[in-house]
């Protein structure tokens, strides 16, 4: 388990200043905060960067927001932990903190952020990918890459700034989870103004009918009624993503998925969640049409499904958009190679 999390800013007069820590009882040696800051600014041209270091018996993974933000968020781990397991989550947590730095709004969410850090290494790939749908900027990047296949980071950053009305964008923090989850690859291409991002795997989040055969006849008609009017949109994607990523909701949903029709008592026994919270979760699942509750019994109406698939459509699009292979530039050739590698890898995983 992580020992704690710290938010540290650089002050020209005082050096490193501890802005926040969690848990509140965490003791942090001021020399340690200086060492971490020194490691960030040394040799990275003062841009945003992620480091993993060892100091005495502590392992540390830390994300620095670049010299303009001049802050870092570090997770302190015991010797037994692997910092690599926390790479994506430290970047995600740091970006959220940096977005709310003015006014210190993030301080109210420290406990939740730390909970996310603790849970992240134990999440399934399905849950990690589903988390992307909760972040409008990552959804936007995926959409842009679906349209174009490949884009330079400068182009992507320009599009994000325009769409979200931002002055600066930390592309590393935006792309890092997409890269770690093997959806996107970044490469330097000769002649390009910046690194190029390639979409090599795609993902979609859907609502599907319950996959258990134990659904009673009258519930089946509710299922049919639900799907006959079903229209997915961005709000729906967020609901589905929440169902997959909230750890307690996910456990309740998994229990219902597995058993089909199930009593509240059985769920309580299996998931070990306090009654009040369990009823909140069941209420949310019912309002969002995942279940139907009749007295003490819970019936499945639908389930979220996350698909990760090979973007075959990109091959057709490459021909349509860029003509025949002979006229392709280095970027398109690279993309074809990367798609091939991704396809082979996915085939190997399937086997």
């Amino acid at each position, binding site marked *: 388990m992580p020992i704690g999390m710290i938010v540290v800013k650089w002050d*020209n*007069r*005082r*050096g490193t200043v501890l802005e926040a820590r969690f848990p509140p009882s965490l003791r942090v040696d001021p020399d340690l905060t200086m060492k971490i*800051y*020194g490691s960030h*600014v*040394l040799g990275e041209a003062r841009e945003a960067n992620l480091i993993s270091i060892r100091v005495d018996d502590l392992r540390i993974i830390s994300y620095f927001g670049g010299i303009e933000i001049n802050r870092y968020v570090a997770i302190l781990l015991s010797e037994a932990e692997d910092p690599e397991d926390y790479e994506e989550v430290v970047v995600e947590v740091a970006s959220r903190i940096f977005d709310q730095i003015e006014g210190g709004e993030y301080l109210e969410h420290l406990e939740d952020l730390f909970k996310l850090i603790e849970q992240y290494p134990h999440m399934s790939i399905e849950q990690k990918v589903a988390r992307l749908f909760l972040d409008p900027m990552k959804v936007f990047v995926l959409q842009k890459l679906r349209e174009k296949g490949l884009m330079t980071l400068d182009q992507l950053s320009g599009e994000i700034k325009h769409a979200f009305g931002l002055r600066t964008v930390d592309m590393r923090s935006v792309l890092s989870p997409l890269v770690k989850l093997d959806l996107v690859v970044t490469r330097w291409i000769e002649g390009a103004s910046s690194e190029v991002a390639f979409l090599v795997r795609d993902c979609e989040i859907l609502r599907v009918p319950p996959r258990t055969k134990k659904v009673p006849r009258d519930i089946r008609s509710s299922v049919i009624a639900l799907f006959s009017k079903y229209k997915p949109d961005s709000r729906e994607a967020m609901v589905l993503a929440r169902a997959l990523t909230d750890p307690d909701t996910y456990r309740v949903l998994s229990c219902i998925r597995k058993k089909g029709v199930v009593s509240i008592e059985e769920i309580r026994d299996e998931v070990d969640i306090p009654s009040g919270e369990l009823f909140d979760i069941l209420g949310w699942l019912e309002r969002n049409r995942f279940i139907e509750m009749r007295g003490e019994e819970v019936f499945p109406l639908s389930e979220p499904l996350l698909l990760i698939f090979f973007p075959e459509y990109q091959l057709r699009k490459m021909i349509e958009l860029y003509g025949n292979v002979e006229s392709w530039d280095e970027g398109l050739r690279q993309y074809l190679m990367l798609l091939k590698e991704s396809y082979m890898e996915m085939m190997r995983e399937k086997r």
Partner: protein
Amino acid sequence: MIRQIYIYKKDDLRLIFHRKYANIGRINFDEISQLILPVARAMDDGVIDHSEIFRYRISYGTLGDYIVVMINNRSCDREEVEGALTEYLRDVASQRFNSPLSVEEERHLSILSRRVIATIPAKVCFVGFGGVGKTTLLRLLRHERIPLRYEPTMFGERAIMTLPIGPYRVILFTVGGQERFMPIWDILIRGSDVVVVVTDSTPDNVERTKSQIMPMIRDPARYSVILAIANKQDLPKSLPADVIEQTLGIKTYGCVAIDPAYRSKIMDVIKSALLS
């Protein structure tokens, strides 16, 4: 660091309170105040403005019946000074003072002033190549055991000086002297009130300090007092401090940092650089 504080009555611009914690060289504030006070009086309540001259910043604002002027170092973060001045103004304007002040009022304003002075510490940064004795100087000033074995500093080290200088809490920084840390020295130097260039007094080190370090610190230390310490004066063939002063072109003080007898001398040097 905030060097001086003035409080004026807004209606007749009469000075009712002045505290001098550090000098401002040959700058004649009486003349400058003739220009600043009418401007400050015309400003909206709570607005802060600044004038910068040489290595000092004159920050001023008005609230209620009073105008407050704070003379601070340009190396201070402007927003931090604005925050301190705003809070001080609020405290002052919340009361009505006699002119001249009663003993009790004088005491009250002195306490308020000390409190605001303490919010911005002084910063002293030691720079120099590896092994010249920067960390040893830091230990000397903190009354700590002098290290006998050389351990290179990574990135930089920071420590609070055990005793304050005047009303100021002093934060000491040293840079990592190895070549790989030199590109990030500016991060540690920026915001310093005093930059102390440390050399081991050998001809080679002094020459390299002159050609490599002096140009490098010029920009980040442009509002700082810069002086040099010629360390290791006890070693044979060490150049005397006055020769090094001529080479570097800055005031230079001889020192043997491993000798605790030098503590008070170096303290006086720092004190004088901060307060004069």
